């Protein structure tokens, strides 16, 4: 479904990822892990069009994404939840969600994904009129994912959704990710909490200093002694 081929992306000449290739199949949860600055976020940004790759190709369902404007990429069915969430802070929860379905304005059923969002995060339905900036950190993360779901994506990309979230909610969020996949979407997730993430993931990639170090089924990665030592802290 998504195929990233030898993508290299640089910031002002400094290469952040070089010749990274990954594949995501329909219906999978794929986890990307790696140390700080390994280039995980850069990879997602390059797919989402927030950064323009210097070389390489990104194909999504037969369409070539690299070089496409970011909002067009969103329209092709990729939803991206960046590290810092990027909500619209002074708009209400309702408006944030409504904006998620901006692409479908004029359509009668534009609010259809709302059922899923409220099923996953019932708390959001209680806070529709609250300004996004006054939500707690965890609720903001839920809203960010909810807003992304409103764009009716086929592929959902999450960048460290557990960051700054209290333990109880981390679990809820990972469970939600699983439910999202089960409802028919594909998920590409970047996480530091590899242990939890690998529990729900089908396959995983490990990045190191901008390159793919390792890839394989989640169980295999979890079992790898090097990984256990270096990334799982076991």
């Amino acid at each position: 479904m998504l195929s990233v081929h030898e993508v290299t992306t640089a910031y002002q000449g400094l290469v952040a990822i070089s010749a990274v290739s990954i594949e995501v199949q329909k219906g999978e949860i794929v986890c990307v892990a790696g140390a700080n600055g390994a280039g995980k976020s850069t990879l997602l940004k390059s797919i989402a069009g927030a950064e323009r790759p210097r070389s390489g190709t990104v194909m999504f369902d037969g369409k070539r994404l690299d070089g496409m404007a970011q909002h067009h990429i969103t329209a092709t069915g990729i939803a991206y939840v960046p590290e810092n969430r990027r909500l619209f802070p002074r708009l209400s929860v309702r408006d944030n969600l409504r904006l998620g379905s901006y692409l479908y304005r004029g359509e009668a059923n534009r609010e259809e994904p709302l059922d899923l969002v409220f099923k996953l995060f019932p708390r959001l339905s209680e806070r529709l009129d609250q300004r996004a900036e006054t939500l707690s950190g965890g609720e903001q993360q839920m809203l960010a994912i909810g807003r992304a779901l409103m764009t009716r994506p086929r592929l959902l990309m999450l960048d460290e959704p557990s960051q700054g979230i209290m333990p109880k909610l981390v679990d809820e969020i990972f469970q939600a990710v699983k439910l999202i996949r089960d409802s028919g979407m594909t998920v590409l997730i970047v996480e530091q909490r590899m242990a939890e993430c690998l529990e729900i993931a089908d396959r995983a990639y490990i990045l190191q200093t901008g390159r793919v170090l390792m890839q394989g089924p989640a169980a295999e990665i979890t079992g790898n002694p090097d990984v256990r030592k270096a990334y799982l802290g076991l």
Partner: protein
Amino acid sequence: MTAETIIQSLASGLLMGLLYGLIAVGLALIFGLMDVVNFAHGEFLMLAMYVTFFLFTFFAIDPLLSAPLAAAALFVLGAVVYLVIVRFAMRAKANVGMVQIFATFGLAIVMRGLAQLFFTADYRSVPNSWLGGKTVSVAGIFLPQPQLFGALVAIAAFGGLYLFINRTDFGRALEATREDPGAVALVGIDKNRVFALGWGLGAALVGLAGAIMASFFYIYPDVGASFALIAYVTVALGGFGSVFGAFAGGIIVGLVEATTALVLPPSLKSVGIYAVYLLVVFVRPRGLFGSM
């Protein structure tokens, strides 16, 4: 000073104030949208007045009728200015505000130069429009028709703008883009389109104001300067980014200007406006209705 003088002053001030509000609201909209102070705002007004003047002179279209045309012309201008100039000025990493100020300041100079080149430095005016020079008088209070009409247009425009921003998807997209232009692509909104439309809309409102002004004001390449500063103060007084603030700010400025002239020498009447601005922001550092 008779009661009549006072009432007349307040009435004139109110009408003028609504016009100030209409001139300022475009500025407020653009500012609110992208934190850009458009220093060519006065020149937009100037151009709208020329558009109206030439439509009148060559096609005998009355300012009443040409107002939508002027608004449309200015809409295009605003969008083009965004796409050709402001969009690039926003690439600055530091001091974006200053770069934009000076890019639009440069634009203002160019526009004045072009006006002088193509329209000459002569003073123009629309001599006998339908409303020009006509007055309604109620109980000894005179209300000039162009301004009266302008006030109605201003109120209508404000109402329309309010509904547009608060009730439509595009309005919501506008708000979202103002909040975080980098994030709207996440929901499939093209920020450049929103910005261009925002600039277009802001300029179109000035276009309306210009068409109304043309029926009672003189026109020449530097005419915008008379209104630019008032427009900035109006917007700041009402609170940057607040459309309603521009409306209220306009009315306050109009009334304060009129009343100051009753007590101080008229040459100092803008001091009254300035003093009120300072008083307001010292008490409310974000203007009356500002949120940013």
